[in-house]
């Protein structure tokens, strides 16, 4: 893109479940301040690919480079060390715990005596959630009792609080209303301005077309191609998703 190193590069990733090639030799990259939409039908392998990056799955072969350096990601903890944060489609919240407990899950703040510093965690949670969603008030209830948008705010807060450099959002607006979808879009714009790279995964082109700088399309575990959003029409991308073919003329510019 503009000469800078990519934030993250996944090269020739292979993932197999049993005999099925879920991801078959896919390479993608992401630059600072960029939104890359990852598109494809359900089962195209996009979630699987991205779970390799977030440490939830292991690739059979292939390499990951973070800011030009080879990265070893074997579990979610490793991914977090590289400031890779993931907002899963399921949100990955423990429904029985409150917002602060979920926000800090796996990275709790402790007092000097080793016990959880619950008050400090609640204070931090209040601060960041107020910023993301001013209507957020239920700090002592289990997150099971929150609305879809508030639950999403908790999941996003988790990524933002820990200063993600690379943010993965899996179908972020699938379960949200119009108002909340707009809030997520605003947030993505804001994070982009802060120089964070974002992978936006969706099976619906309308969710990502206006937000993404580039679009990567997958079909049946294979990479169809990557295009710059400004070079293509929605129909052309739809063609890539359905037919698995690059549109005329766009192919050469993909890796610009």
């Amino acid at each position, binding site marked *: 893109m503009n000469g800078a190193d990519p934030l993250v590069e996944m090269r020739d990733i292979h993932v197999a479940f049993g005999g099925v090639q879920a991801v078959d030799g896919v390479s993608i990259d992401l630059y600072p301040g960029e939104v890359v939409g990852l598109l494809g039908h359900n089962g195209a392998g996009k979630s699987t690919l991205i779970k390799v990056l977030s440490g939830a799955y292991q690739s059979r072969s292939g390499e990951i480079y973070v800011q030009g350096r080879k990265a070893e990601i074997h579990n979610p903890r490793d991914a977090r060390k590289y400031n890779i944060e993931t907002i899963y489609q399921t949100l990955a919240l423990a429904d*029985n715990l409150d917002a602060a407990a979920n926000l800090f899950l796996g990275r709790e703040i402790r007092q000097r005596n080793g016990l959880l510093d619950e008050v400090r965690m609640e204070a931090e949670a209040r601060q960041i959630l107020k910023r993301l969603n001013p209507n957020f008030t239920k700090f002592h209830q289990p997150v099971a*009792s929150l609305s879809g948008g508030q639950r999403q705010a908790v999941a996003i807060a988790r990524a933002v609080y820990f200063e993600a450099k690379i943010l993965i959002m899996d179908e972020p607006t699938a379960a949200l209303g119009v108002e909340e979808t707009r809030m997520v879009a605003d947030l993505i714009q804001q994070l982009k301005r802060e120089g964070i790279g974002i992978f936006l995964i969706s099976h619906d082109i309308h969710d990502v077309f206006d937000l993404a700088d580039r679009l990567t399309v997958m079909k049946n575990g294979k990479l169809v191609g990557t295009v710059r959003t400004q070079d293509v029409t929605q129909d052309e991308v739809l063609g890539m998703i359905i037919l698995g073919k690059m549109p005329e003329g766009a192919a050469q510019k993909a890796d610009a």
Partner: protein
Amino acid sequence: MTVVGRTLKAMEVDTRILGMVGALLVIWLAFHIWTGGLFITPRNLFNLSVQTASVAVMACSMVLIIVARHIDLSVGSLLGFLAMFMGVVQTEWLPDLFGGAEGPAFGHAWIWVVTLLAGIAMGALIGALQGYIIGFLAVPAFIVTLGGLLVWRGAAWWITTGQTISPLDANFRWLGGGAEGSLYLWPSWIVGIFTCAAICFSIWWARRERRRFDFPQKPLWAEYTIAATLSALVIAFVATMTSYQVPSRAAERVYALRGWEVPEDGVHLVFGIAIPVLILGIIAVVMTILARRTRFGRYVFAMGGNPDAAQLAGINTKRMTLWIFVIMGVLCAISAAIASARLASADNAVGTLDELRVIAAAVIGGTSLSGGRGTIFGAILGALVMQSLQSGMAMVGVDAPMQNIVIGIVLVLAVYVDQLYRRRTED
């Protein structure tokens, strides 16, 4: 909302716990009337507290296991095995080891400690084995511990080919309560006053912490009411325990044993808090802190609420599972010590059906079998409810088979009521 409802809400009292306390009081009153005034007496309540201790200790860690979406069916058998193991350690191995050339040193002062530590180590080891198979080899806990139920009961028999070990070490027997195993008058009051001070301190501390960040506070009167109520309960408990007189013959024995000077007007001794109840109290506090204030406890609840989320948050759920079962093994050993010490002997039937009592105590106490929810305090209350029913029915002469029928029905009913309550409060 009614005035009572508003008051309780301001105090942030868990109404489900309150309901259980209410149910317990109803049971106590009913048996008190039915037995013609024998149930709510210092003597009976003392016995009840001792009888509850063994199951309640195990229930404390069964809560963690069930919260993490596992189950342990082996605790009764494990208790039996560990009781036999500790029986052999204290009556055969250690006397020889400490005795040397002059023959076995029965009654050596260190025997009880070393025995208990050996039992705890063995319990932890067995817990680790079961936890490893469940966590790392991914065999369901139900199957592993069902196997354990058979294995450890069989192993208990094998230790002495079925012979009963009796009598146990004299010092070890204190762990089971009785005239020798109590705190008597002043130590009981010291424990009671210390507990009240700890309650007040923790309430004050929580308030101070919340002020640090300008959080909304409970009204002051609510804090005072809670502190006063809890302290009153502690004081009432100690007062009850210390008004139960040790029979004069047993009291003379204790005086002789401890080398106390006998006053001129004869011996007067009250039981006070029983040692097993003190042990239960300490374990309850430690386990509550572990469950609610440490990373470990937080992860247990996260695993129960959403195992996938826990894993994606970087929690090593396999290792967590192993440790949860290690804790269960340790508490089984402590329970085994209490149970066998109370009987003053170990036989391979100790702890039979205890797995069901322990699970029932946890479940009656509000632990959800689908995971993610449960409290230590609730489980102890659950154990007390079950023991109250059983003792009460025995006192009024209900046959053992009928007792089981009643307790079985109560278990199902308690869980049904709990679910009704949850459905109503969560919508």
